[in-house]
């Protein structure tokens, strides 16, 4: 006869493992909070001295004179990210659709691993390639048609390199999302006599809209924070870019280029910490807002 008595050892193991996992989860989440708090703490000196608004809207960055205007950097970040998304989104959407809905299984088998390889290339490689290929292309071939002079180290170069970097990421997430849809959904539409394109447009994309949007948010967050590749091709001039052929200086590049140097300049490290905090808050806010918008959309469009 099997005993049904309480097995203390086994129950303890169950209890211990469950709680250990809980603690580990809490720890990993706490890091985000700790980072946020310490960034704030470190940037308090400059916030005490100048108002947040004057820091955010200031256009002049002269640390030696104590002028810390973040506006050029914020604009640089936004410009580069915007251009990267404009370039990569349509491309990724269409190739994601092609690969998951239209492509022959043989093509899929060939292409999927290649996308993963692309996603694994280190950013610095993309940066070097940007310097060797994208920057000269812009300064020699593209810019002369639009502006008088451009070194090529520009918002556009940053955007293109960034786009190329996030393309494999976005495509593979898009493919995952399309693949997760129930197959019956496509069959339902096709069996009514819809073409494949009609099915994609009206059913597949619609049904996966929230997933696609979440993937784009993820890509944008990634683009915001991408440092080295952008830093290498952007020109890093602390001025608000007037056209896509002007250089820019995104926030991550500012931190990476200057941290550890000129720390004797008063307020300098507080200013850099504030820029890190800004980056942190922008990404946090962006994620939160897009999540709220998504919930709204899902409710209103009967998805």
């Amino acid at each position, binding site marked *: 006869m099997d005993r049904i008595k309480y097995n203390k050892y086994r129950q303890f193991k169950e209890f211990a493992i469950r709680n250990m996992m809980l603690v580990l989860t809490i720890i990993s989440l706490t890091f985000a909070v700790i980072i946020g708090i310490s960034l704030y703490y470190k940037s308090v000196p400059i916030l005490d001295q100048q108002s947040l608004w004057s820091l955010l809207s200031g256009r002049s960055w002269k640390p030696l004179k104590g002028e810390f205007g973040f506006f050029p950097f914020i604009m640089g970040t936004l410009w580069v990210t915007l251009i990267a998304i404009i370039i990569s989104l349509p491309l990724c959407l269409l190739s994601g659709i092609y690969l998951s809905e239209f492509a022959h299984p043989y093509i899929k088998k060939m292409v999927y691993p290649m996308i993963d390889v692309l996603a694994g290339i280190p950013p610095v490689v993309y940066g070097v390639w940007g310097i060797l290929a994208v920057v000269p292309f812009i300064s020699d071939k593209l810019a002369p048609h639009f502006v008088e002079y451009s070194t090529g180290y520009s918002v556009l170069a940053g955007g293109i390199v960034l786009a190329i970097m996030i393309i494999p990421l976005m495509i593979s997430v898009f493919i995952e999302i399309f693949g997760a849809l129930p197959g019956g959904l496509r069959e339902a539409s096709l069996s009514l*006599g819809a073409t494949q394109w009609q099915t994609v447009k009206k059913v597949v994309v619609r049904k996966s809209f929230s997933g696609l949007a979440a993937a784009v948010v993820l890509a944008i967050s990634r683009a915001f924070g991408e440092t080295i590749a952008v830093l290498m091709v952007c020109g890093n001039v602390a001025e608000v870019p007037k056209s896509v052929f002007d250089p820019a200086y995104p926030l991550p590049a500012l931190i990476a280029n200057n941290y550890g140097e000129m720390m004797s300049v008063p307020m300098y490290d507080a200013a850099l910490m504030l820029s890190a905090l800004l980056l942190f808050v922008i990404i946090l806010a962006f994620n939160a807002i897009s999540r709220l918008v998504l919930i709204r959309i899902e409710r209103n469009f009967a998805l």
Partner: protein
Amino acid sequence: MTSSLQSEKMQANEDSVILNELDAGSIFSKHKPHISVRNLNVYLTKNHILKNVNLDIPDKAITCIIGPSGCGKTTLLKTFNRLLQNSMDVRIDGDVLVDGENIHGKGVEVENIRKKMGLLSQRPCPLPMSIFDNVAYGPRIHGIRRKKTLKIMVEKYLGEAGLWDEVKDRLKSPATSLSIGQQQRLCLARGLAVKPEIILGDEATSALDPISSKKIEELFLKLKDQYSIVLVTHTLRQAKRIADYVVFMYLGEVIEAGHASEFFNHPKEKLTKEYLDGYFS
């Protein structure tokens, strides 16, 4: 001389009609075949799924395809509207004739074949839009734009599917807010809205509660005057309740096909008899 020859011929014809009626296939004297399958072989990734299937599906009647799991019922059904080609690695030999036209022939537009057949899948699969838009989806993709026409159609087909009274006040709400039985009737209405000639049902009631599946069965019985209905079913009792014509498949082959009463009461094949008696299922 000639008249006697003619009368002899007529006599022979009558004989053959009587003979045919005795035969299990007598249903075709009243209902001409709507779908004819000739020497159909289907391979899925080198597995021989359908083996030399020959079959006639009668017009304006309910045909039930029965057989144990994995015998190729669903594959056969999906060959009819060419949904099978959508999945990978399929080879299809042989002919499927719908109204005498080969659906695998040259110059056949696959969308037109599918428009001829409404598909009701195992689990209801509402499209991600409102109840109204689900029914209007088919007409819209086939070019109907006028709001008024769409409204009339939606009401008509929701009515035919017995759902109008339940949803008429909430046509704008998402289709997923319906119960699963209602969703299945919505899918039926959606299928009817493209004016098909054939309704294909792939175990269309297996995911539903008894009351909902009874409703669907009643709908089939009502609709068979206008449509040829082909149902794959797992439950023998359902086939007994509603079938006019029964096809029994086993391991990719059609073992026996015949008029429902003939089939259930006097099965010809030993395998059929064993299946009906419940030796395997």
